[in-house]
């Protein structure tokens, strides 16, 4: 019988309990739990029964590991009921890239109390200016460090303090300051002369940009004159193909989401673009003029026009772009290319 309690003020989901062969050892399998992969509400506790063959311990002491999507890992010795020390320390926390679009931080941690061959997942809280923004997971085993990259997009202008680690365990904490520059004034490119959308469902991702144009689903917003990636009832991630009257050079795009043209809750979190000098919709294989451009939309459902600069300056007369979002339906959206 093992009792597990959520000691926090937030729910914890998909909590797994495992019996291990000694500290950080392999999981004892098979293991017969009365329940597992449980959800615990704040301060809720549950009692679970477990049975396994002692031979499966391979001579080691039975330990029990608790892990959750947003829970700090805990290990106890079943024989003594005592907590097994688990500890990690940061190796590096440094700014990797800094652009107008945002910043990325390289993070590296190592376990300082690990003995067995098991990988333990550490969900590390990442706080921006003291408020928890997300959890990043590091998978640590033995003395092998774990690495991950944390990307920040769309932070407000000015300086921000990023804190990684568990507030109640100062040894795990790392702090770094990042700065978001001021926004440039954008200059919109002229509207394209034609735009079409296609269904990539049966070809994704190989045919992502190898478009087969089937239907005309692009509109124009009368008020702003911006091209409209409206797909209405069509339940897919559209590939939008756009033709300009002459070759354009773009350094970014402006984008906003308008839910009046589709079901509410459409969330586009990424836009991918590729530029072509000639028509990619023809049967001939037309090479792209540049590598793909990927724009992350940090705050989906934002009805305000935001400017997203590219990492490269792109030129071409034909632009193929894909909106990637929840339910594969971006609803209504406004986007337009911006001069560099």
């Amino acid at each position, binding site marked *: 019988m093992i009792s597990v309690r959520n000691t926090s003020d937030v729910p914890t989901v998909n909590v797994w309990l495992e019996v291990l062969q000694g500290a950080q050892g392999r999981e004892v399998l098979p293991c017969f739990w009365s329940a597992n992969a449980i959800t615990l509400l704040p301060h809720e506790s549950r009692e679970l029964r477990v049975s396994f063959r002692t031979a499966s311990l391979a001579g080691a002491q039975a330990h029990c590991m608790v892990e959750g999507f947003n829970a700090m890992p805990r290990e106890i010795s079943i024989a003594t009921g005592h907590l097994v020390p688990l500890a990690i320390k940061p190796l590096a926390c440094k700014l990797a890239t800094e652009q107008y679009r945002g910043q990325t931080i390289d993070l590296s941690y190592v376990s300082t109390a690990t003995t067995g061959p098991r*990988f333990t997942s550490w969900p590390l809280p990442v706080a921006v200016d003291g408020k928890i923004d997300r959890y990043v*997971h590091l998978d640590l085993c033995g003395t092998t460090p774990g690495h991950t990259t944390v990307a920040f997009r769309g932070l407000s202008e000015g300086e921000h303090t990023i804190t990684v680690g568990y507030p109640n365990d100062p040894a795990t904490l790392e702090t770094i300051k990042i700065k978001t520059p001021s926004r440039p004034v954008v200059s919109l490119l002229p509207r394209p002369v034609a735009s079409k959308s296609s269904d990539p469902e049966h070809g994704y991702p190989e045919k992502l940009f190898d478009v087969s144009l089937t239907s005309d689903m692009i509109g124009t917003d009368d008020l702003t004159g911006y091209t409209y990636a409206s797909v209405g009832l069509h339940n897919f991630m559209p590939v939008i193909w756009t033709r300009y009257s002459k070759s354009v050079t773009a350094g970014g795009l402006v984008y906003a989401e308008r839910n009046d043209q589709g079901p509410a809750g459409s969330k586009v979190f990424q836009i991918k673009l590729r530029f072509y000098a000639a028509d990619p919709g023809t049967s001939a294989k037309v090479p792209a003029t540049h590598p793909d451009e990927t724009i992350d939309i940090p705050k989906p459902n934002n009805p305000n026009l935001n400017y997203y600069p590219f990492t490269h300056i792109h030129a071409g007369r034909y632009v193929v772009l894909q909106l990637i979002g929840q339910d594969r339906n971006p609803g209504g959206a406004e986007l337009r290319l911006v001069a560099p």
Partner: protein
Amino acid sequence: MPVSVKLITRIEPDGFASPIVEFSQNINAEPGRHEFVLRPADHPELKMHDPHIWWPVNYGKHPLYKVTVTARVRGEVSSSATSMLGVRTVGTYVLHSGGRAFTCNGRTIRVTGGAWIPDMLLSWSAQRYRDEVRLMAQGNQTVVRINGCGVMPPEVFFDACDRNGLLVWENFSRTSPPTKMQADKNVLMANMVDFVDGARSHQSIVVWEGSNESLPQKNWGQPMQNKILPAMDGTRPWLVSSSTNAPWAKPIHMKSGGPYRLLPIKKYFELYQHRSAFTCKNEIGMACPLPLNSLVRVIPDWNKPDQVDFPLNVTFGFHDATSKQYQDTHDTIRSTFGPTPDLMQYLWLADLYTGTGYRAIYEAANKARPLNAGTMLWKVNAAWPSMMWQLFDWYMRPNAGYYAVKEACKPLHVRRRLM
């Protein structure tokens, strides 16, 4: 030369209190194979009075009687055989909705569980078979469908099913459709007759099924249906196939055909409420990515993701992540939560979806009762380390789907009203 043999039959309860029955009879045994039948008409001791009844998982206990027949020649024990015996009846009928239902001791059994397949190397130990059966039975699964595509589980598997109350839906050899290559009829027949001879004494077997999805080849299926099974068994229903009707057999009233991929949760409720194919569904499932500590054992380059489809790479593909049905789980994770920044987050979310999906399947099936009496998964166990269709993996590590099914298939389960 016939030999005079004294047959001593002993029926004793295995682990519960009940009178022991013992009687003997002298026979003359011919050389070679000799079948001798002990009939209740000749031996009133064989009529059991108030026996302890065998029930499947969640419907009662699974008491077994141990039957030992000893042959003595000139006072010496010449041979002895032991078999476990459970007392129960099984049957089947068609619901008003057109779906098939199975019964045990006259009671309609809620069919939960899924297909079981043998391992890729056919090298499991007896303990492994017992463990897999125990996992299924303790997961509130009432039925297991043997889908060995011709490979029959060993005796120990059926023994474990008898002891754990796990009903067995025995799918015979998956023979080719008649238009394709045919199996040698005589070899196939001898093989299956030998199998039925051994398996028929296991009361866990609830139904014989001719072939998975397609029809069994006629020159084997017809004699099996019309002569051999009625003569050798006659106590269990026969279904010609899991998903195809034959003009020469009774309608099967069930469907395979998935979906084999993750659907939006509400979709399962719609399907079970409105589609006739879901009145008796014997194959449904979704992608089930491995948990991290299983994954690192089979995908050595797990930390070198592909540039396009994080966190997958070619090795993931070798382990079935290239399946079209995997894409739905992959897309759902990425489109709901955004591109995930690390593998573990991806796996947690995948596990969460697996649990939510499987729970929805059985909650939808529960809600659709009495339109639906049975839902079987494709599939329960793993033939090899795979990212698809399993409640527990190659290392017998369950995923959230296993415990979700266990929860949804409890005799008393509280469900949130989704629609």
